[in-house]
């Protein structure tokens, strides 16, 4: 049970107080109406007597009476029938709403302290309407009200000796006081001193224009039922109710009876008034218009007299009409001001107070005292009388008497009216006593004692009465006595509360008497008592026992109180509280108390919420949603429905679909309503579905490959697409259909403070926004949506959210088929779709620096959706037409690249860079060297420096710029990789804007190719010295052998049947290429002639096998050559030579780069022959000569190729290198055949010419030594010298030993046999020697040795080194005469 404003004692006292029936003459009523009040209303505020009085109980003990209340009731205020009562109760409950409607107050913690004013209101109303029979006994006085000289008959009510009190009203403003006084005096003489009073009122002449706000208004709290705030709410709500439920006649009726608007205006009139929400009831029963209709239906016998009643009825209805008009429409249209009691001055108030005091203490209290004494006498006189008498006969006698007396008494009405329409007497088993029955004396005595607060005495009386009634099986009276005994026991506060009394009373009411109303009343009293004794669980059980009632409203109220009891019990049973709240909510909703129902469910939700009891939670949320919707609380409704959708619910897909439909429907209504109000049209609602995975959100660099590089990552260019990727998750099991998705942004133009947004209208002039027309997400799916924006102005672009339309269209499709829901229900809902938004709120990384950040979760700022739109940059697009993806190794293909500037800016400084520069060329780079080469004639040259290939190269755009919108086509040559296989080729274009003011930003365009290469031909080349120079004697020649091998395999081999070498080009600084021979075997030999002028220039020489010579020294062929590894090798060598030139020279090294152009063909699908060209590069860096091994091991073998380190080494180190055997090339020249007639001449003379050629670029000292005697049978000397070991001199000696054998058939050198010469670099020199041959035969003339060293000037201290011998040179000496013999000899 919730907290009440009244304590239990106060509550019981106010529930049981003396009721005084008022009968008022027409004139008196008129006087009162000057104040816009009826007489009863006028007096009511003063009915609470604050002073203390004393009463003597029958035994003579003085007993105090404090805080006495008297309830004045119109005598004509009849008891309304049951259905009206129900309506009234329902009205009271529905009007009393919690003042605090903050949802936070629904938590159980708050609810512990909460009060339930509606329950108290209900209770109060209940007690007033169901005036109990015991209490009716207390209504024992009627008053005759006189005005002037008019007299009316007075009515005796309660018993034969009804106390009558007569009041004379005197209108000060209108009447003569002396006349009133005279009448009063005569009244006193007639009725007695204590039963008359003269009340002077209306001492203020009220003009109607001058309200006195300073005057206290004691009526306010009786007239205004509740506080202003809740009334305001009520007003709306009632209106809404009547709108919403037009066919509910009850609501309409209630609405007519009570006009809250007037009440509000009443409230406004007096700002200083006390608003007591716990005393709201007065207006209810008094303004009840329908009250007089049922009065007619009452049995005639219950009415005291026809005449009087008619008059009374007339009066009452007149009054009611008046008062109802007053309360409902009286103040409408006028300025809100207090319009009652205006004619009453403060002294008038005091006079009324005095009157009530007089009435109460002087009149009523004394009468009660007397009556008690009389009753006590009666009881003590014959205590056993009622016991002895048989109850049946007693009943007959008494009832006859009762009937007789009821002719002039209205008591019966009060007595019987409390029972529903007289049916009670038929249903109640047991005895009905007449009102004057002596059996009731004890009970009446108790009642009187109870009324005057003598609870101990009352308890004793009730206790005695209880026993008597029990003996006589008068169950109804028994129960009443029990109930009152329990209550008075409670009120004594000395006795323990007899719970079993109350239990028995309730059971008796329920089972024996079928008097549910009384059972309820007993329950209400009992629970209040139990509550004040802190026995909450029992209280809850008592409440719950009564919930079997058929009245939903009552059940709801009781269940709610039971719930509160559980909450108050120790320990608090919050779950039972919640459950009972749900039950109460259910009953409330059944009794059309929607607001209360809503509140109950909301209170319960606080218990169930987020405790994983999803099924229950869903049910509550769904009910709340429905209820809120019915109350037109659309905002709340959508929140509750939203709850159903936001987590991954376990509901069936069908159920989810219906949740979604309901949500959309409610949401749509809400939006429509808002739109009607035009209040929040600018604000798109946030939808619960789908869910954005915030962290995955990112801005995609761009749809194109072009990227903007700048310091700020978030810079984006004007007029260029910005892509945004958003991941949307559908937590439900049903597919979602989103339409018209687009990004929401906020844009702040540069130099402006105000920002623009596209939330309401698409602002394509600022930022073009791409719209995704349809986006479906399946159940439990996460899907990425890609959005595009094109900013059209510079400034700050902030992407804030996603706008879309969520519709239930897709739900109906598959779900309908699956679950075969009736199409009719869906068709109404199917079109529902809602335009809403989702917020994009990206969080940065979690911060972890400061202590505060470590202890709590703080995320950094994330600017990934805040973009800076900067002025436009050129945008380059590059396309290749027919880019080959399949190539042969080293194949060269020409394609066309098209460069297009798509932007409005001029583009310049276009560079291309790649990690593999060897695979393509734009040509034109070496165009200058090409022209040079042509000009210089046969041997085109180019500088070594020109061939420097870097990874970054400029694209030869015409004019080095590309105007906006223009495109340029450039040829590109692509060469296949050297090795077979797949490879990635990546290029990056870099360019600048020629207009952009900020030089920091540039753009790049990336491109990647995948290329597959298949092996084609392999080329190998060797070079050696030509020792048999055919023609020109002094030419230093090399012979190059070129091996070309086809290595195609598999399908490629079938496609390309034959490869042919079309041209061989040579790039060298020193050598030119000459054709020598051409073998079909794939081996080719070329002669290389030494260019005398050694320089930095590179010479190209070509040997072409076809008609058209390829200008290999020109782009693009030379580009590939320069980009090849071969060239790298050659160049490194050349550079090392250049740097090492001054100190040493490696004679075995040559710088020959060969370019082999080959061609092959295949037949394509159209049977066309397609030519395929390619070029291979091969470098010859060392002669293929056999040399002796190194004689002296150098301390550390110096790396020959490294030019930098060579200079650091002493020259002596160089001499040990084997190539020192190749300093000088020599050859012998002599006639091949000598014919001599040995008969005539004994000796043949052969002149031998020794050709010496310095192959070195340094001067050389040469020592030539001829061996003295060599036999003609020593051709092996060549081989032996070839086999010379490191011990050169020894080998030579041994050979010479061999050859020095005396032989007749030998030849002898004659003349000078040794010679020392100095040869300049590359110089030639020849010496002539003579040999004498004594016999015919074949002689090897190579019987000499040549030693050489680099001249002292350049390399001092060097020793002579035997040079590599030339091949044997034979001379045939024939005997001219005896040729035959000679041959035989040989």
């Amino acid at each position, binding site marked *: 049970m919730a907290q009440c404003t009244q304590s239990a004692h106060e509550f019981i006292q106010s529930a049981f107080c003396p009721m005084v029936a008022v009968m008022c003459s027409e004139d008196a009523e008129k006087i009162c109406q000057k104040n816009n009040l009826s007489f009863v209303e006028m007096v009511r505020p003063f009915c609470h007597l604050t002073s203390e009085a004393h009463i003597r109980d029958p035994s003579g003990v003085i007993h105090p009476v404090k805080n006495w209340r008297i309830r004045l009731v119109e005598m004509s205020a009849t008891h309304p029938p049951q259905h009206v009562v129900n309506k009234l109760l329902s009205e009271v409950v529905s009007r009393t709403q919690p003042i605090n409607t903050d949802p936070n107050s629904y938590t159980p913690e708050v609810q512990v302290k909460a009060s339930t004013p509606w329950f108290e209101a209900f209770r109060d109303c209940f007690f007033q309407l169901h005036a109990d029979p015991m209490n009716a006994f207390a209504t024992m006085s009627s008053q005759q009200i006189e005005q002037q000289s008019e007299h009316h008959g007075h009515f005796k009510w309660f018993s034969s000796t009804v106390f009558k009190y007569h009041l004379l009203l005197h209108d000060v403003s209108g009447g003569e006081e002396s006349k009133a006084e005279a009448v009063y005096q005569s009244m006193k003489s007639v009725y007695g001193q204590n039963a008359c009073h003269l009340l002077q009122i209306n001492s203020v002449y009220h003009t109607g224009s001058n309200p006195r706000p300073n005057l206290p208004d004691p009526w306010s709290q009786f007239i205004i039922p509740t506080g202003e705030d809740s009334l305001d709410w009520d007003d709306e709500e009632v209106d809404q109710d009547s709108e919403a439920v037009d066919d509910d006649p009850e609501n309409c009726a209630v609405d007519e009876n009570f006009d809250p608007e007037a009440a509000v205006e009443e409230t406004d009139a007096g700002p200083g008034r006390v608003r007591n929400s716990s005393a709201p009831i007065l207006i209810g029963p008094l303004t009840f218009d329908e009250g007089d209709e049922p009065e007619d239906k009452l049995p005639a016998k219950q009415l005291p007299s026809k005449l009087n009643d008619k008059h009374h009825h007339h009066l009452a209805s007149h009054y009611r009409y008046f008062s109802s008009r007053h309360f409902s429409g009286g103040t409408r249209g006028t300025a809100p001001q207090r319009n009652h009691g205006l004619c009453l001055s403060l002294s008038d108030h005091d006079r009324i107070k005095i009157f009530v005091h007089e009435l109460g203490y002087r009149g009523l209290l004394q009468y009660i005292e007397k009556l008690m004494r009389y009753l006590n006498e009666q009881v003590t006189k014959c205590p056993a009388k009622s016991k002895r008498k048989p109850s049946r006969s007693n009943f007959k006698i008494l009832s006859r008497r009762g009937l007789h007396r009821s002719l002039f008494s209205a008591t019966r009405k009060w007595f019987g009216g409390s029972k529903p329409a007289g049916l009670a007497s038929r249903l109640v088993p047991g005895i009905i006593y007449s009102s004057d029955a002596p059996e009731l004396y004890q009970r009446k005595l108790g009642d009187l004692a109870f009324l005057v607060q003598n609870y101990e005495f009352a308890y004793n009386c009730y206790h005695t009465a209880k026993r008597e009634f029990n003996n006589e099986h008068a169950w109804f009276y028994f129960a009443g006595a029990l109930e009152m005994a329990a209550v008075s026991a409670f009120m004594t506060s000395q006795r323990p509360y007899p719970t079993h009394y109350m239990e028995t009373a309730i059971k008796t009411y329920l089972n024996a008497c079928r008097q549910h109303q009384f059972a309820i009343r007993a329950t209400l009293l009992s629970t209040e008592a139990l509550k004040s004794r802190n026995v909450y669980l029992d209280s809850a059980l008592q409440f719950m026992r009564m919930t079997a009632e058929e009245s939903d409203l009552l059940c709801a109220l009781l269940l709610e109180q039971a719930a509160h009891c559980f909450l108050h019990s120790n320990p608090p049973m919050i*779950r*039972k509280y919640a459950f009972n709240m749900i039950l109460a909510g259910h009953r409330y909703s059944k009794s059309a108390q929607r607001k209360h129902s809503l509140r109950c469910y909301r209170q319960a939700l606080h218990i169930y919420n987020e405790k994983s009891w999803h099924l229950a939670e869903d049910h509550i949320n769904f009910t709340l949603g429905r209820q809120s919707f019915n109350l037109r609380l659309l905002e709340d409704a959508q929140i509750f429905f939203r709850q159903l959708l936001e987590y991954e619910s376990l509901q069936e897909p069908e159920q989810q679909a219906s949740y979604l439909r309901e949500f959309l429907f409610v949401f749509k209504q809400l939006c429509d309503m808002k739109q009607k109000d035009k209040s929040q049209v600018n604000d798109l609602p946030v939808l619960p579905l789908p869910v954005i995975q915030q962290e995955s959100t990112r801005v995609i660099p761009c749809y194109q490959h072009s990227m903007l590089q700048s310091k700020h990552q978030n810079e984006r260019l004007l007029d260029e697409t910005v892509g945004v990727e958003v991941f949307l998750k559908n937590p439900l099991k049903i597919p979602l259909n989103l339409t018209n998705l687009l990004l929401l942004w906020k844009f702040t133009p540069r130099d402006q403070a105000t920002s623009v947004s596209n939330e309401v209208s698409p602002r394509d002039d600022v930022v073009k926004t791409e719209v995704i027309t349809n986006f479906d997400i399946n159940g439990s799916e996460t899907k990425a949506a890609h959005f595009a924006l094109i900013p059209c102005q510079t400034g700050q672009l902030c992407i804030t959210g996603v706008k879309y339309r969520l519709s239930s269209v897709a739900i109906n499709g598959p779900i309908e088929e699956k679950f075969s829901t009736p199409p009719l229900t869906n068709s109404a809902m199917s079109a529902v779709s809602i335009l809403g938004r989702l917020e994009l709120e990206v969080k940065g990384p979690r911060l972890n620096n400061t202590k505060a950040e470590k202890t709590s979760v703080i995320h950094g700022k994330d600017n990934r959706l805040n973009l800076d739109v900067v002025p436009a940059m050129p945008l380059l697009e590059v396309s290749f037409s027919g880019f080959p993806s399949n190539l042969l190794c080293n194949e060269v293909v020409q394609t066309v690249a098209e460069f297009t500037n798509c932007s409005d800016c001029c583009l310049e400084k276009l560079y291309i860079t790649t990690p593999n520069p060897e695979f393509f060329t734009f040509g034109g780079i070496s165009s200058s060297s090409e022209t040079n080469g042509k000009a210089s004639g046969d041997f085109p040259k180019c500088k070594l420096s020109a061939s420097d290939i870097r990874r970054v190269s400029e694209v030869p755009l015409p004019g080095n710029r590309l105007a906006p919108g223009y495109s340029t086509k450039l040829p590109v040559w692509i060469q296949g990789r050297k090795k077979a296989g797949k490879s990635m080729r990546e290029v990056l274009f870099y360019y600048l804007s020629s207009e952009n003011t900020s030089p920091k930003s540039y753009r790049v365009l990336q491109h990647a190719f995948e290329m597959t290469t298949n092996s084609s031909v392999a080329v190998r080349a060797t070079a050696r010295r030509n020792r048999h120079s055919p023609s020109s004697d002094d030419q230093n020649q090399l012979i190059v052998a070129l091996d070309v091998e086809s290595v195609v395999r598999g399908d490629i081999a079938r496609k390309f049947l034959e490869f042919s070498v079309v041209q061989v080009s040579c790039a060298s600084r020193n050598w030119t290429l000459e054709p020598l021979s051409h073998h079909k075997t794939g081996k080719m030999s070329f002669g290389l002639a030494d260019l005398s002028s050694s320089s930095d220039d590179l010479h190209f020489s070509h040997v072409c096998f076809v008609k058209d010579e390829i200008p290999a020294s020109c782009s693009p062929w030379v580009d590939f050559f320069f980009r090849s590894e071969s060239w790298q090798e050659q160049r490194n060598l050349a550079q090392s030579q250049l740097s090492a030139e001054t100190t040493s020279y490696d004679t075995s090294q040559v710088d020959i780069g060969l370019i082999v152009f080959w061609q092959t063909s295949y037949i394509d699908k159209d049977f066309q022959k397609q030519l395929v060209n390619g070029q291979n590069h091969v470098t010859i860096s060392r002669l293929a000569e056999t040399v002796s091994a190194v004689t002296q091991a150098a301390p550390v073998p110096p790396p020959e190729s490294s030019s930098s380190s060579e200079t650091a080494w002493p020259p002596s180190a160089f001499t040990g290198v084997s190539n020192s055997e190749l300093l000088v090339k020599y050859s012998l020249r002599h006639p091949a055949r000598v014919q001599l007639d040995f008969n005539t001449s004994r000796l043949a003379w052969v002149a031998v010419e020794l050709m010496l050629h310095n192959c070195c670029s340094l001067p050389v000292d040469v020592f030539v030594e001829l061996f003295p005697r060599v036999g003609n049978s020593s051709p092996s000397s060549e081989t032996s010298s070839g086999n010379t070991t490191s011990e050169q001199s020894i080998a030579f000696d041994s050979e010479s030993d061999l050859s020095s054998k005396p032989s007749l058939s030998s030849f002898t050198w004659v003349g000078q046999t040794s010679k020392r010469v100095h040869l300049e670099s590359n110089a030639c020199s020849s010496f002539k020697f003579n040999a004498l041959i004594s016999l015919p035969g074949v002689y090897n003339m190579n019987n000499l040795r040549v030693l050489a060293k680099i001249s002292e000037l350049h390399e001092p201290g060097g020793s002579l080194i035997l040079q590599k011998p030339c091949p044997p040179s034979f001379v045939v000496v024939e005997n001219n005469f005896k040729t035959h013999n000679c041959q035989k000899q040989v």
Partner: protein
Amino acid sequence: MAVCVAVIGKENYPLFLRTVSPEEELKFHYTVHTSLDVVEEKVSSLTKSSNDPRELYLGLYGYVTNTKIKFVVMFRKLHVAYTDMFCNPFYNPGENITSRIFERTVIGMMKQD
């Protein structure tokens, strides 16, 4: 035998709930949730009064009819099933119970007449 078997977690959230008839599941959700008040009361009184922590029976398994006939239910089977389920290394304590064996045991208990 039983119409509803529920396993409730430490923080009073449902780990497992099966009813004989699925239509009444909501009702049993409410009932079970509400009965937790009683359980809580018993548990708190147990911990306060008894020193023996092994006395785990809450006294809910007994039922006395108005003719003083006593019904006693032992929960050994359910407890064994729960223990077996809990021994599953892939089960995180506090998660909803999805074990099929456990479910089968519970349904078997409910269907026994």
